[in-house]
């Protein structure tokens, strides 16, 4: 088990290194930050000075090595726009993003899982079809369309909720609903199919044949098994807590990670983009690791495969 955790950790670090490398070269290949930040008609001396100041005049592999070396010590460089440490800029945005993504996650799980279980248990009834139709609508609708729709209804027409900004907690309501709807829909579909698959397993019939009440068959025999595949999708949702709100933050002018990413990319603020990707990748990798560990916790077959032997 220890070896398993260590090997997964090593793989996680490798993934992060890969993301950093990729981000570094793609950003370098996609335009000269000096021209973008200082504008095209800046004097050549100013451009040269800018490049020297940020180390852009070095050969690219030297820039890369310096970047990795600094990153290892926790230094992701300074923003080319305002000179503050890039990582600080990123970290101060995290709470704002979590303020909408965490409640949205609660919404996804709190609505999606019960709806999926209900639909699976009432298969082919009117309620099941309604739930699934709603769910299809929920995740096929692009989030910006839903966002605009919600703004139209609740801000413009009814005037109940603000359309954008972040002056009060009320501002968070529409972004949370937008984010939560699609996730809840996906969660419901996934839970329903996981549950249906389990309900078709021989051990469910055997548990009924044992004389257990249907309620207990569901709660003690079907649900723990249906939870296993569901963990994958929950892990994915947890992984996107940090970076999953780019569109929604832009639409609602919410000052989170997503908006920072959009502006940093547009501005070619290399250090900030790299720090952002680094934080996002780190979070996703950690979420993945948590999923793997959760599998072992939920499924004894996985546990003993890791402990060795079959």
């Amino acid at each position, binding site marked *: *088990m*220890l*070896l*398993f955790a260590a090997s997964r950790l090593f793989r996680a670090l490798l993934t992060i290194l890969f993301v950093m490398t990729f981000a570094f070269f793609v950003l370098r290949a996609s335009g000269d930050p000096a021209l973008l930040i200082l504008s095209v008609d800046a004097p050549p001396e100013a451009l040269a000075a800018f490049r020297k100041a940020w180390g852009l005049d070095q050969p690219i592999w030297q820039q890369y090595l310096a970047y990795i070396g600094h990153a290892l010590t926790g230094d992701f460089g300074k923003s080319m726009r305002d000179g503050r440490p890039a990582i600080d800029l990123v970290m101060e945005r995290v709470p704002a993003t979590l303020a909408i993504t965490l409640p949205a996650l609660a919404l996804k799980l709190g609505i999606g899982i019960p709806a999926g279980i209900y639909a699976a248990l009432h298969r082919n009834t009117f309620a099941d079809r309604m739930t699934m139709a709603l769910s299809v609508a929920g995740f096929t609708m692009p989030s910006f369309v839903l966002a605009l729709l919600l703004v139209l209804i609740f801000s413009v027409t009814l005037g109940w909720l603000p359309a954008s900004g972040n002056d009060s907690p009320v501002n968070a309501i529409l972004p949370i609903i937008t984010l939560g709807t699609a996730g809840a829909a996906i969660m419901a579909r996934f839970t329903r199919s996981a549950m249906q698959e389990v309900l078709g397993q021989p051990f469910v019939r055997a548990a009924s044949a044992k004389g257990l009440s249907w309620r207990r068959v569901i709660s003690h025999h079907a649900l723990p098994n249906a939870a296993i595949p569901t963990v994958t999708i929950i892990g994915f949702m947890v992984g996107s807590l940090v970076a999953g709100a780019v569109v929604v933050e832009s639409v609602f002018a919410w000052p989170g990670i997503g908006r920072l990413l959009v502006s940093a990319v547009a501005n070619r603020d290399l250090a900030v983009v790299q720090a952002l990707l680094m934080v996002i990748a780190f979070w996703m990798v950690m979420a993945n690791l948590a999923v793997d560990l959760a599998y072992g916790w939920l499924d004894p077959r996985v546990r003993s*495969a*890791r*402990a*060795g*032997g079959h």
Partner: protein
Amino acid sequence: MSPLLEAVDLHRHYSVRTGGGLFAGKAVLRAVDGVSFRIRAGQTLGLVGESGCGKSTTGKLALGLIPPSSGEMRYDGERMPAAGSPAWRALRRRLQMVYQDPLGALDRRLPIGTQIAEPLVIHGIGAVSERRDRALSIMESVGLQRHQFGRYPHELSGGQRQRVVLARALITEPRLLVCDEPISALDVSIQAQVVNLLLDLQERLGIAYLFISHDLRIVRQVSHDVAVMYLGRIVERGDAENVFARPAHPYTRALVSAIPTVGDKRERILLGGDPPSPANVPPGCSFHTRCPFATAQCRSEIPTLQPQDDGREVACHRVRETALRLVA
């Protein structure tokens, strides 16, 4: 006369991980561990044993689908060429295989006639128009109707699908068919149809079979010779009727006695426990952990196949004594 197909001391080992964590180690899984047999033209060798005994792996080795770790297959006295080589592909015309699950072996998107004719296309046999005629004629000889040529696999019953698989295997006029549990998935009443068909085809076309099955009754029905496998080795080999009527190896005796019959009761030997894993074969005679007759010699010394008075071969140190006990 040299045999059509001959296996000489075949081994097929896999390395598997055992244990985990810091104590992870490698072990050798001995799927097939020194198997020799001969099949003469037009004859059937039945290969019986329980799951994990290596009978299916032996079937794949026999066709050269997987290479042996050591030992060799000989076809018509010549060493079988390496899998995938042009010589091997040419040989495959004469050596075909039929699996247990006919639906899995068929492409559900193609009409059965096309699938039956496919081997002709692969081996470049005959003109295009001729291929259809040959498919139709082979369909008739396995008991399919000509009008079923355009049907799809899901439109047929299990027994008919197995006929399609047989037709496809037979269209290249093979000299040997390896049948791996060809009728286990079929209902009892359909099994008899396919068994009779296999026997008729053998009589008409002179095909040899390597017939792999866990069902001793079916194996006896179709086989001239039979080999009983346990944990990758053949423990008894001989004339099918003789072996099943008077099994000599304690494992064969237990296996035969375990077959429930409609007729009268026979001796009953109940084995304890499960067979050991082929990744952890006991030393000496691999059957000694479950054998009621095992002695110290059995626990340390691997018995080899020894010819007996009636022509069969048995790998058991105590075969003479235990045979005596049976009579007494």
